[in-house]
Every structure is written in C-alpha cells, then in structure tokens.
C-alpha cells in the first residue's frame, strides 16, 4: 500500500499540475438537473476549446453525469453544484445520461 500511496501522491500531483488552464479562462456553461432531466438537453459548444460545465442538481436525490465517449462519471449530490472541466472537443455529438435515471435524463453536447 506504500506503493499505492506514492502512486496516489504522484497522480494527485500530476492532476494538480494539469489543472491550471491557459491564460484565458474557459467558457462556463450552466446545466440544470430537475425532475430527473437535464435542462437544456442540447448543449452547443465551440469545437477545439475546453469549457466548464457548471451542473446544478435541483432534485433531492443524487445523479451521476455519465458520458461513455468522454470517459466521465461524476456524481452530483442533490441540491449541489459541480464544476466539471471538459476537454477541447472535436466537432461532433457527445451524448450523456444521468445514470441514476437514464430513461429520462438524456442530453447531448454538440461541438461545432
């Protein structure tokens, strides 16, 4: 576990090092979860520019933002707001779901 601890520290350090984005702050895009749905359900972003999804869960229960394409699984507790750093995307459509209510919580990021 010592190795794991060291690996964890290194990983944390690598992560922190990766945090400071360039001089220009990335665009922030709000996204709301309400009644187990995403609003809006289509998010348009500029291709090639990183951005930040500011996700607010207005429901009481937790929700998990999940995108298989983007390798992101992020829990958003009920009543909380999470800032999710998103990478620069190539032009295209990137669907995501709220894993805990995947029948209703479906939306897409469109990079163009």
């Amino acid at each position, binding site marked *: *576990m010592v*190795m*794991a601890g060291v*690996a*964890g520290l290194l*990983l*944390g350090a*690598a*992560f922190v090092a*990766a945090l400071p984005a360039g001089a220009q702050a990335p665009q922030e895009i709000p996204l709301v979860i309400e009644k187990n749905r995403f609003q809006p359900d289509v998010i348009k972003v500029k291709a090639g520019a*990183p951005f930040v999804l500011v996700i607010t869960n207005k429901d*009481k*229960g*937790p*929700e*998990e933002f999940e*995108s*298989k*394409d*983007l*390798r*992101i*699984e*992020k*829990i958003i*507790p*009920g009543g*909380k707001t*999470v*800032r*999710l*750093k998103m*990478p620069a*995307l*190539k032009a295209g459509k990137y669907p995501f779901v709220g*894993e*805990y209510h*995947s*029948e209703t919580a479906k939306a897409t990021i469109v990079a163009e």
Partner: protein
Amino acid sequence: MGATFVVTLREAFEAALILGIVYSYLEKIGARDGFRYVTWGGALGLLLSVAMGIAVTYLTGPLLDVGPEIITVVVIFAAVGLLTWHAWWMQQHARLIGGQVQHRIDLARARNRLWVVGLIAFTGVFREGAETVLFLWGILAQAGAEAGWGSAAGGVGGVAGAAALGFTIFRSGKHVSLSRFFGITTAFIMLLAAGFLSNGIGRLQGLGVLPLSDPLWNTSWLLSDGSVAGGFLSGLVGYRAQPTLPEVCAYVAYLIVAGALFFGRRTPDAVGLADPTRS
C-alpha cells in the same frame, strides 16, 4: 424496478466476482481461517463506500469537483497492483505446493501474505461501491411513492443477485482441480487487472490528465456498453465498445507483461521444489 435491478446487479457483480474468487482461493489452499481477511476487507470496502457516499453528499467546492475522482482513480490503480501481485504470488504458490493441504497452509502462513486477499476484497467492493450506495440511497429516498417501492425492491434484488452469482463462483471453484483452478483464476485475474488498467487510463483521459483521443473502433452495434451483457463484459474483462488508443495499448501491454510474468518462465527454486505428483 427492472432498470434499478439491472444497474445494481451490474455494479455489484464485479465486487461479488472478486469476493467469490478470493474466498474460493483460500478454500482451495486449505486456509479457511483466512476467510476473515476477505470478510473484513469487503466490510471495510462497504463501510468506506457508505462514508464516501455521505462525504460526497456534504462536500462542496473544489473538493466535490475533483476529490472523489482522484480517490477513485487511485483505488483503480492500486487494484491493478494488488491483483497483479496476488496473481504472481498465486502462481508461485501453485508451483511450490504439493498435494498436502497441511503443507499449503504452512506455506501460506509462513509467507504471511494472506492479508493481501483482504485488500483485494476491499478494492473490489470500494471501487464502484460509493456509486452503488448513492444510487440505492437515491431510489430509497424516493421509495415513498408507489413506483418508488418497486425501484427499491429492484435495487435490493440486484445486490442479492450479484451476491448469489459470487457464491456460485465460490461453489464451482470447489469442483475444479487445484492446478486448473490456479491456471483459470490467474488468467482471469490478468484480464480483470488489464480491464482495470485500461479503465483507469480512460478515467485519466476523462479528467484531462491525459489527452482525450478518438475511439479506435466502434462495436456499439454489436454489443453496447450500456447493455446488460456489455456491462458484464466490461466488469469482467474491461470490454469497451469504443476504446481509445491509450486504453487499448494499456490493455495489451498489461496482458503481454503479466502473461510473461505469470506463464512465461519457471523460477529455479519453484522447479526444484515442484511436486511431481501434482496433477
């Protein structure tokens, strides 16, 4: 009800699988008294999953933004290390031990490494545990409504189903000959660890630590990640319908290195001590 059943079954299956394997491993080497390591490890994983679920619920700001992800990624990579070490140890063990149960126990005790199976049980449960706990928590919170009770029953049923599958694996391990059992489980743990590693690399891509890249291929039409079968395969061997180049490289590189380590050579002392009557 059906949807929550499937989600919890899928999430809990991987943990049950790992528990089933490590329990049957101890049974196989005649070290039933080591069961407590697995039980403690699994219980600790469950406890910390609940704690993490509670922590995530009350965290705010930057800690909530990235904290849980860093912990998850660390656990995934720790799991790869532990599984590899265990498989390697098992392989050494399988070569060293003869037919006598007592000899096996002595050897295991002498090496005093049984606690590692507890750590493996811990990582197996903790890895997806917090998410499952929060998922169940969410549906139980909504269980007041009539439809909510169905969902809650589905969630509980999913966990029970996964536990039953884990127990089945444990039982079937009994009927396989020792050398075959070691061979099968070593190969299986390799696939599992390779899947974990590629999953961890994918998460680093998602976190922006590694650059995101296009998928190499897309087999969603054949087997989607979201389907039950796809979910099982993803838990078992790290299946991805749309894997990226770093994920595939990590997977293949792990199999090559671990394959060479586990199956490629015999250590001199193992050859010397190997029991020729071993089946």
